[in-house]
């Protein structure tokens, strides 16, 4: 439900769900289906991976299809709806500015990218496997330093750098 005509500036938290078996982030933060966003997920897109394992040979539902998630850890403008406000409250996205935090009813506790990095660190520690492998697979070494976090953009599909595992620049 639209709460106002204002926009919120948020950044996806790829680490709001436990890491996958291989140490990759799997979180999918859904856009509000009531808004015409044109994309399914905040700061992420799904890359299908067909797993043609032997066990499913002849399965009427076809081969096993898995999803890998590619993230764009960058500010994204979204409408001010209950859906997006709830995501900020639950830590699925982080507010990129004081105004967004205030609109969502939470405190602004620092740059969003820094919070993503903190969440990444926590997720990797909780992962329990090889920390180095997990970081390498997620591509977190490619994160820009906090001090040079990109400014909020009107349209991330066109203007934001790709900071996640997806290196092909696709939106």
């Amino acid at each position, binding site marked *: 439900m639209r709460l106002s005509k204002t926009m919120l500036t948020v950044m996806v938290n790829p680490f709001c769900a436990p890491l*996958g078996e291989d140490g990759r982030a799997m979180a999918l933060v*859904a856009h509000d289906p009531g808004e015409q966003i044109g994309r399914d997920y905040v700061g992420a897109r799904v890359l299908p991976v067909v797993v043609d394992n032997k*066990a499913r040979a002849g399965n009427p539902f076809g081969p096993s299809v898995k999803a890998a998630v590619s993230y764009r850890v960058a500010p994204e403008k979204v409408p001010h709806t209950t859906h997006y406000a709830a995501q900020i409250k639950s830590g699925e996205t982080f507010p990129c500015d004081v105004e967004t935090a205030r609109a969502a009813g939470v405190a602004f506790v620092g740059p969003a990218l820094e919070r993503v990095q903190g969440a990444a660190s926590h997720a990797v520690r909780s992962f329990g496997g090889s920390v180095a492998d997990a970081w390498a697979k997620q591509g977190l070494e490619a994160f820009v330093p906090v001090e040079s976090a990109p400014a909020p953009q009107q349209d991330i599909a066109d203007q934001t750098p790709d900071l996640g595992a997806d290196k092909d620049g696709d939106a």
Partner: protein
Amino acid sequence: MTTTQLVSAFTTDDFVPCIAIGAEIAVQSRPSENTPIRLLLVALKGSAGTMTENVDIIGPVLSEAACNVAAGAPSELARGFRASRAMSKDVETYLLAVPAGSGTAATASILIGGTWSTPGTLVIWIDGEPVRVEVGAADATTDVATAIVDAWDLEAESAVTVAADSSTNTFTCRDVTTRGNSKILYVDRSAAPSGLTVSLLPPLGELLTIVNELRTDLLAHFALTAGSVHGGADSTSGASFGSAATSYATAIALVNLLRTGYAAHRVLTSGSVHGAADSTNIVLLSAATTAAEAVLLANDLKAKYNAHRILTTASVHGAADTTNVTAATDATDGAVAGDSDTGNGVSFAGGTGTESVALALAKIAADPRHFKRICFSAIDATNLGLIETFSDEQSAAMIQKPSAVVLAHSGTQSAAQAISKTQLNHEGFSVLWARSAETPAFEIACAHMTDRVTVERNSPAGWNQSYSGKVLKGVRLARSVDLRANDHATQKSALKNGLTPLASNDAGETVIVRAASTKCLNGDGSANYGALDVAEFTTVMEVCERSGNIWRFFRSQNPKVRDDFAVGEVVVSGVATPIGLSRYMSQGMADLPGEGVFESPCLVRGTYNRTTKRIQWTLSYTRAALHEQSEGIVQSLA
């Protein structure tokens, strides 16, 4: 000429004139029925349970008493069984226990405070179950803490234990698992004595992590002179920090020491520590007196310190300290929105440990029984990978023992669909989603799966049924209505991503919005909702099994096989042909349109492969669509 002895009732010395007449009843011979739909629950057992983990598949379990003996009354497994029985006591249910992994049990703590002069009742809710604690008019806060322990001692089926330390109660999950972190503690003070307070303490683990990391980083930063960060080491500001914190009390004490030490260091210019005082990154919060204040102070201190350590303007530092970063996630208060009865609750936290279902899966695969419906308590990515591999192997053409799996998730939608879409995307799995539900996720899964068994075992009409709007008895959703998937947008989004959302109906009951499988993605990235309803998987698998049963019976009547007889050729009995099998199988499936499974009679096409000497057949059908949606116009005429 020979005679045939029809009746042998006469003994050789029986000479009485009479007639002996036997009777033979014609027994209809037909294909076997599909194997019954059994329910298997796989979860952690309690220490008192007598069953052996990864070894015993016990059942059918006929009573809660029997379950309690085998699994232990307060165990995850026994609680799941009780949730199942709340839906129906007429389900063939089996139990398989898995050993807990190593780790730490999740905890939540409360602090009793205030003064009062009247008696009353405090109600503490965990797992959607209330425990009433009587409070006397003259009780001290420590008496209340003790009374809570005494009250809990009577709760033999509770999944948590409680201990008292002065006026603090700490509730600890019996099971060592990360799933314990999904539990929420609420306190209803509406009938409690006026003046009695109950503070929900923030998660201790998070607070300790950030406070202790701050202590380590601050000490290292104070001493850092390498790279000209400081002109000289600051050996005074951290001198009183002492040892790392281990409890709420020591965390509060330490964060206050850190606050004081940081404030002193920030402006220290003597000894050439800083080129100038840092007058920007000031911690304005006062010293903490409560755990909640300690959380805020630690988070603020982290932010200000991280800004200070890289400050090089005005020569505060000679160079940025990029080594001693406090990277700990901000501590939280653990609050979960509640309702007008309880206000906010607090999440359990600190639970670690994940069991492995690998040996349990091997046990199921080796069992001659076919467990068609399974609920697992494990929902972590590693175990789900194992379960999925097991499911695919059991569904393979040469094994044909497919299982439908129901899981439940009480986290955020993003976390839940990370499981349903990213991890699974599998037609045999359903993930029920009820964010911050009070009822534990495994119990929700057991309740729904029990309902499915009672419906789907009605072969064949039960194979193709809808669960939309079905009530899950005993399941309590989030206390806060705002956290429930009651709105159209959330339900739409969840179903698109392979989740089965739960919502509340007008009567306040918990209902299934629509029972969906997790299959939602094609190999090319496009959406695939061909197996959206769980009826799709059930129907396919049951029709497969029935067709197999028909072939087996047909083969028993026709032990030889060849291609179709040519026109004019003498037809030989006992010989299977493609057209013969096709007709027989079509007849065997003829009841399915009438039972609402097929839209119309199925089409069976058979051919004979001379090389392999096998009849190959294809059975094609269209499942009767479930009437889930409709459209209409209501016109008001002048």
